[in-house]
């Protein structure tokens, strides 16, 4: 047990990697076995993330469960993993979405082996990003998380899948084009010749103008993945094309990588530059919130609507970060978690509906509440979370962020609050048109979510509720780390 606890982060990372290896060795036809391997690997990683959560000591801002292995010292690269309050929730989020995603795809029959292989490669990347404390490995895992998306969407997707997959991949890698100079630049211009993020953050470097440029690159480079305005158009089209569990992973976890990158690398290593960039970030975040909501309001496709709602909700994350306050940053991280769970739930419900009705056109649906009460109820729960209804996790996130925003940027904050109505508009519109109204003849005999497929959704909805009712679960763990960050930001 002690050995396990000492290497727990690497072991979490190895869960999908080993799963991937095993799946590669299994013969093509044995779908059930492959799914079982995937379920075990994802279940194990979920259990271990919970273990990390339990082991975490909330009373310190230090990195915990650190492992440090010299890798390529000549190039300043070390394998360093560790978690602090900022990444803890993300690890858990990944565990939950990975596990529920595997369960959601249990009925997959087309090219099962490849699907789970690519998924596990992607998840390995995601876990890696959230635990890496070395820029090289951070970026390595980041790229690893992005690329499988192409095949996952292009092969198993629907509407315009090849175009969407290509657009998404190129867009995200265009972001990487900025990250190459930025991340290497951090090591170079700090004069330390190391990619160790902790050392870079602690060093007393005078970045000067270069800091502004590097931060800009980092912000835009990672921000693309977080869907910042105006670099967001890859996201909805990608969501629409992707198969259910990929949408879950994509919107649920992958978009968080972007915001996390800005937070972990940009804000911690370049706090002064963050100070200068904060107004720009706040304004763009406001655009995300309002503009995203209005575009979502204009969508006729269920998945597009959710896709743009993600654009809007990720704006809340960026706004929270831009406030540079304890409440705002806590709220932003809370929102990353809550939004991840919420969209996963959204997509898992929409996936069910689409699989049965073969349409996502809002105008063609209607009255589903009476044929699919479970799917509808779960969708409505996700929708309510999206609106920011209390007792669901995202309420706290939005509450903290908006209140902090009003304090820091009164005008932007109050405008951002208007996003609450805008999001209510598009979510309720969809609920009304899709689930309410007289049941349509065409969908009358469609099956609801079966008992076997229910647990995945219940885990998601339950997580939303638990964190909504007991926000302290999240905030306590964030407390010290965010405080340390705010202190750094304040100079």
């Amino acid at each position: 047990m002690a050995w396990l606890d000492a290497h727990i982060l690497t072991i979490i990372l190895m869960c999908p990697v080993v799963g991937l290896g095993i799946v590669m060795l299994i013969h093509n036809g044995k779908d059930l076995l492959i799914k079982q391997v995937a379920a075990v690997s994802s279940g194990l990683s979920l259990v271990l993330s919970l273990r990390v959560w339990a082991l975490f000591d909330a009373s310190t801002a230090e990195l915990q469960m650190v492992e440090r292995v010299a890798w390529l010292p000549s190039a300043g690269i070390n394998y360093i993993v560790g978690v602090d309050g900022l990444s803890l929730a993300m690890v858990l989020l990944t565990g939950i979405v990975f596990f529920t995603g595997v369960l959601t795809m249990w009925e997959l029959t087309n090219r099962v082996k490849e699907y789970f292989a690519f998924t596990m490669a992607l998840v390995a990347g995601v876990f890696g990003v959230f635990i890496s404390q070395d820029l090289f490995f951070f970026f390595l895992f980041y790229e690893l998380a992005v690329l499988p998306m192409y095949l996952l969407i292009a092969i198993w997707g629907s509407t315009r899948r090849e175009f969407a997959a290509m657009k998404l991949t190129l867009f995200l890698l265009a972001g990487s084009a900025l990250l190459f100079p930025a991340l290497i630049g951090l090591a170079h211009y700090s004069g330390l010749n190391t990619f160790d993020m902790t050392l870079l953050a602690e060093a007393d470097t005078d970045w000067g103008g270069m800091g502004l440029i590097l931060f800009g690159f980092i912000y835009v480079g990672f921000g693309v993945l977080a869907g910042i305005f105006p670099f967001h158009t890859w996201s909805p089209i990608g969501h629409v094309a992707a198969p259910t569990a990929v949408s879950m992973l994509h919107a649920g976890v992958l978009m968080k990588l972007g915001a996390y990158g800005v937070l972990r690398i940009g804000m911690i290593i370049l706090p002064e530059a963050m100070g200068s960039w904060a107004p720009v970030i706040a304004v763009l975040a406001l655009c995300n919130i309002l503009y995203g909501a209005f575009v979502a309001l204009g969508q006729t496709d269920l998945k597009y609507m959710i896709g743009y709602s993600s654009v809007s909700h990720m704006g809340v994350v960026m706004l929270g970060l831009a406030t540079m306050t304890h409440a705002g940053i806590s709220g932003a991280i809370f929102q990353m978690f809550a939004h991840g769970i919420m969209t996963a739930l959204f997509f898992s419900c929409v996936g069910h509906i689409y699989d049965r009705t073969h349409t996502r056109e809002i105008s063609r649906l209607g009255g589903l509440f009476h044929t699919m009460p479970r799917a509808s109820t779960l969708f409505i729960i996700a929708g309510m979370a999206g609106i920011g209804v209390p007792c669901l996790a995202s309420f706290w996130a939005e509450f903290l962020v908006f209140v902090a925003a009003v304090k820091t940027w009164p005008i932007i904050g109050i405008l951002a609050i208007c996003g609450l109505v805008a999001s209510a508009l598009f979510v309720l519109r969809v609920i009304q048109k899709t689930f309410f109204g007289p049941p349509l003849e065409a969908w009358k005999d469609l099956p609801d979510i079966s008992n076997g497929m229910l647990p995945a959704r219940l885990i998601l909805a339950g997580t939303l509720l638990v964190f909504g009712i007991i926000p302290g679960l999240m905030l306590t763990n964030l407390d010290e780390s965010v405080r340390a960050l705010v202190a750094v930001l304040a100079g």
Partner: protein
Amino acid sequence: MDWGLASLFLPELALLGTALGLFVVTTTVGGGESADLRRAGAMADRVAFFGAVFAALLALVPAEGQLFFESYAVGGFSQSVKLLLCLGLAGSAWLSRGAARGQVSVRDRPEFHLFLTLATFGMAMLTSATELVGFYVGLELSAYCLYLLVAMTRREGDHAEAALKYFIQGATLSAVALFGMSILYGLSGTTSIAGIGAAVTAEPTTLALAAVLLSLVGVLFKLAVFPFHFWAPDVYEVANDGAASFIAAASKVGAIAALLRLLTLGLGHDGLFWILGGLAVASMTYGNLAALVQKDLKRLLAYSGVAQAGYLLMGLMGRDEAAWSAAIYYGAAYLGLLLLCFIVVVEVGRGREDARLPISAVNGLYKKSPMLAMVLLVGLLGLAGVPPTAGFTGKWLLFKAALDGGAFWLILVAGINNTIAIYYYLIVLKAAYVDDVEDPTPLQTSPLGPKLGVAISLAIVLFGVFPQWVMPRLLDAVAAIL
């Protein structure tokens, strides 16, 4: 003869021995009968492959010393490169064996392997030469062999034209290089590279630097750097797969080694390196843009090679051990990745009349041969610089070296180029993984082909994730020549 000294020359001796063996096969076994010809061809296949493997094993033995009146240096650097060259040769020999695709006529196969081996020998010389005459001889020896290899493609067609154009361009540019070298000799009075380096550093006149630049042209041509790359697409496209794979993989490694050796001449001069930086940008941009619209897989690989040469040149702007070792690391990775791609080319192209291979030929590969599709996936993503392959790690090390050389904005350009490049690699992958074919019957592959591919893929991934297995040794190796 001092066996201690001879031990330094072992890999070359092995190559020469192989060449001799092939020569014997050429002259003795071949007869008028077609059965005899086939036997001769098969024997040549084996001799070439095992000779190369043997040479590679010999290159693994650490050796350190000088030969031939100190005009030939053997050390970590040259041994590493020779190892890669021999591996590349083994790969290409295997890819051009009779059972593979049969684009080299049975009658020519012993000669084909002979020239392949001699080309490798030339490059091995190039790697160790510390003196301009030996350097130039090595360069030309390998170059002439390559011209012939291209021309040896069996069927009637464009290959003759491509070979001729290749030859014309090669001859012209090596004349330019020779001109540069003669100026250097004139300025410094010596043909020793170290001696010239000292002279140029002591008195870095514009003429001297211009001469260095001119002498680089021969190597840049081999590396297919823009604007000396024009031969590459045609040659890749129409040459037989064996020759193309050798030119694309092993010969690039030789060129990198030669480039590193020559560049030591201009280390002290920024302007020279900024010109290289300019070439790097032009090369990667041009290569990637042109690759976007290609319909032929091998031609696409050629343009991608032009782009990759650009990344490499950019990395060399670091001008230190890190940059030089990153270049070799990247060269090694590139060799492996290109071999992966050519394994797929050979297996998929089996039975096609033409040496060309349209991208659509890999359509539905995931169904026809999942393992081969996997190999293609690793190969292309590695070229695209996607982790966890050595392609990613190599690119990171090159970019870092470039930034340490002050090329911040160049890296940005390189990053953007990397994005463009993803597009065409994905187009090929899409064909293999997404597009379906009407006839999904499993592909008849050679029994070992896909497995060899998987083995190389694993190596690529392992060396990508654990660069520390080789990097310290490479750092030591390049420290000796800098």
